[in-house]
């Protein structure tokens, strides 16, 4: 793939599709299980954490213009060995994220909608479509996801709105939490999945061709705000609809959709949410697979970046089918280990790279001034 460019608006659509993506179906359940009716506060705090990560990315982007890739940029910052180590960390994160997303799709369908179909059918078909999209290129991907993200948001909002008759405002009470620990725990989960994951977009920044410098900042933070609002609203609606029982439903939005009953015509539309969830997970897996492919292809020095797409697809398929032994294992890995990896390792890496960028360019300015 030659270096393609996308606009700031298209990057914004990618951010919405990855942050909202599968999170809107998965996240309300563990958060409400941990923090109960205060989960929405943790969401807002996690959104602010993600916002801080985004600030680091925007700062680095200013110094990445003209670079062929993220890898070449950090090689200039910290040298080849450290750059390879940084790339390896990101690859490790992605080699967990992509199979986990796909395993999530497979779990959903095999547990809820199509119980007799083996999981490999869902894992392989969805990753094949992801791989084909990655091979089509970033520009095609971005153009597609502008449309699909809009559809996904519209359907999710429609479900949240249609479920309004079943909301009880009293489920939010009491507003003040007794202890801050559960809120911190929920914050950690949400900061790792999905808000902290925005760190992975550092790899895509060299491909953004913002017409005006201010437009990138505006659109990035605007889209992140939309995503944050959407996630917070979905958690809120789950609490309003199910109250203390919110933490016991595995796919909250799916369950919420099944509660909708309007005039005997609009009923049992949870399958629609299931289908929408595929869209979100597909978009998220595709973006992450694309980032993973760039990093691996650069580390291996491949002449054609498309060569590594299918091998990575196959690795991710077999990982998704062998990574998780049971639902409890899935929960532990996705909601305990993964948030720690993202926050402690991934975000620390981004912070370190931001500092390195700041030091380098501050020294360069000083030398220039002197």
């Amino acid at each position, binding site marked *: 793939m030659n270096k393609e460019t996308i*606009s700031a608006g*298209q990057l914004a659509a990618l951010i919405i599709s990855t942050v909202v993506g599968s999170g809107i179906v998965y996240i309300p359940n563990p958060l409400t299980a941990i923090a109960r009716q205060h989960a929405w506060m943790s969401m807002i705090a996690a959104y602010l954490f993600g916002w801080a990560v985004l600030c680091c990315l925007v700062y680095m982007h200013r110094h990445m213009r003209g670079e062929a890739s993220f890898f070449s940029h950090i090689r200039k910052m910290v040298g080849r060995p450290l750059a390879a180590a940084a790339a390896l960390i990101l690859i490790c994160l992605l080699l967990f994220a992509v199979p986990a997303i796909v395993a999530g799709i497979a779990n959903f*369908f095999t547990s809820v*909608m*199509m119980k007799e*179909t083996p999981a490999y*059918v*869902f894992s392989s*078909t*969805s990753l094949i*479509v992801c791989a*084909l*999209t990655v091979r*089509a*290129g970033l520009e*095609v991907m971005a*153009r*597609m996801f*502008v*449309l*699909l993200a809009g559809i996904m948001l519209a359907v999710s909002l429609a479900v949240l709105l249609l479920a309004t008759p079943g909301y009880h405002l009293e489920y939010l009470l009491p507003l003040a939490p007794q202890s801050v620990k559960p809120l911190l725990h929920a914050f950690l989960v949400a900061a790792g999945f999905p808000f902290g994951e925005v760190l992975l977009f550092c790899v895509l920044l060299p491909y953004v061709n913002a017409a005006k410098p201010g437009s990138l900042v505006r659109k990035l933070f605007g889209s992140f705000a939309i995503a944050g609002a959407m996630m917070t609203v979905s958690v809120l609606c789950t609490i309003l609809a199910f109250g203390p029982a919110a933490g016991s439903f595995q796919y909250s939005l799916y369950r919420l959709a099944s509660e909708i009953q309007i005039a*005997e*015509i609009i*009923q*049992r*539309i949870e*399958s*629609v949410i*299931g*289908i929408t969830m*595929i*869209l979100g997970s*597909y978009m998220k897996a595709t973006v992450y697979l694309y980032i993973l492919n760039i990093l691996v292809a650069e580390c291996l020095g491949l002449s054609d970046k498309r060569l590594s797409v299918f091998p990575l697809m196959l690795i991710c398929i077999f990982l998704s089918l062998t990574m998780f032994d049971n639902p409890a294992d899935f929960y532990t890995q996705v909601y305990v280990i993964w948030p720690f990896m993202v926050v402690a390792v991934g975000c620390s890496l981004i912070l370190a790279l931001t500092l390195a960028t700041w030091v380098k360019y501050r020294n360069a300015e000083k030398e220039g001034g002197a």
Partner: protein
Amino acid sequence: MSGKETGQGNECGISRDLDGNLAWALQRFDRCQDIVIDRLGLGESLDTAAFVLYCETLIEESKNDIIRSTIRDMIDIEGTVLDSLAADRVIRHFERQGPAVHPSTIVRRLDEAELQVWQGCIVLFVAGWDCAVGFKAASFNKRQVTEPVNEPAVQGPREGTVELLGTNLGMLRQRVRTSRLKIEYVTAGEALKSKIAYVYLEEVVNPELLAEFRRRIADIPPQEIMETSFVDDWIEDQVWSPFPQFRYTERPDSATAALMDGKILVLVDNSPMILICPAFLVDFFSTSEDYYVRTWYSIMIRQVRVLAFVIALTLPSIYIALSTFHPELIPSVLLIAILNSREGIPFPAFLEALMMEISFELLREAGIRLPRPVGPAVSIVGALVIGQAAISAKIASPIMVIVVALTGIASFAIPHYDMAMALRVLRFPLMVAAGTLGGYGLMLSFILILLHLTSLRSLGEPYLSSLAPFQWRDMRDIFVRLPMRTLLQSPRNRRLQRIGPSRSGGRDKGTP
């Protein structure tokens, strides 16, 4: 007599020896018994030999006396007596290109003379002259200009293109009265020597697009081009895509509108179809009639077409997915009705749908091939009888017949035949996906179709232009049609305004 000199080089050049030229003609046109070779005498005592060569099936009967009237004209001009009109005088007359009544062309090579014969000219060879002169006398029996069969209109012009390239180009010239309308010719093929014309409006068409088009036209190998669709096959981006990358029309007004939009038209002699390139997905939802009717009606019709597109593509597969995998999505009362109607059907919904769709496709194809008096009656009766018989035999349920009928009607509602065919083709894989994986399979199929459409290009431009990348301004004229006074405030193509200062800011339509 005006003449136009053509021909270069001396290979197979016309000889001054008339007998040599005659021998060539006899040999070349051996067993072409509609070729006439008439010997003449010119000059004093008619002793200057000459002969005319023409194809009697191609020329107009009344133009047989062209030679006689030409000679008479020469006498008037040269001021000589018929008896004293010598060969050298004839030759001098043509070579100095005296004023002409009959359009003529001077050729220097035998293969050019042959081409003149096949283009319906009468070619005159004169002894002692190493050239020949061809007089246009063609009369091709062609169809009259009538309303196009495939694009009828309730309101608006009813002219349609015909098989004559000149007539079609004339219809365009009548509508676009500016020298910015450029027409360029290309010839293709060894035997057919098809004349291809491409037409564009200068300062409206995107120069990069035009350059890309020229490059692709130049790359066409020396193949026989029988019809406009042959050009399509050679210059399109993805031959294997089911979606048409260019549009066709037989209406000069649609072609003119396309020119105003910066498109390039391709016309081929002996074909009435005008190729419009590039074509985007959104172009297949509109017709020229949309701009002749009232706004609300136009908006409604556009919405109906979008609905028809969705129904034609997805209805059978949605029915299969819902009835097999997601019955809970169907309202209870309707579900009971469907279950009642499907009672006793031995086949699963997927097989039932497949059989009915294939039967419908067979009926449709058969209806096209049958003679006109019989065709419509047979296809309608056939559909009714087969549908009723299938229900009585419990092969198909009434609901399935309705689904198939609605799908067929929806595909007829799509104004462009090529797009309707694409949907017919894609319906079957969607049915397979729905039958195997239900709603999940359907969603994956939609994603794959969207992926294909997003990566598809028409003459290098994204096929989903206006949708992806999304352009708000273009939404005025895609799924709705705003009143003309609003549409024309910002012209169809901004390049129309490029000559003077621009009226308003904003991005060029072509920018992603």
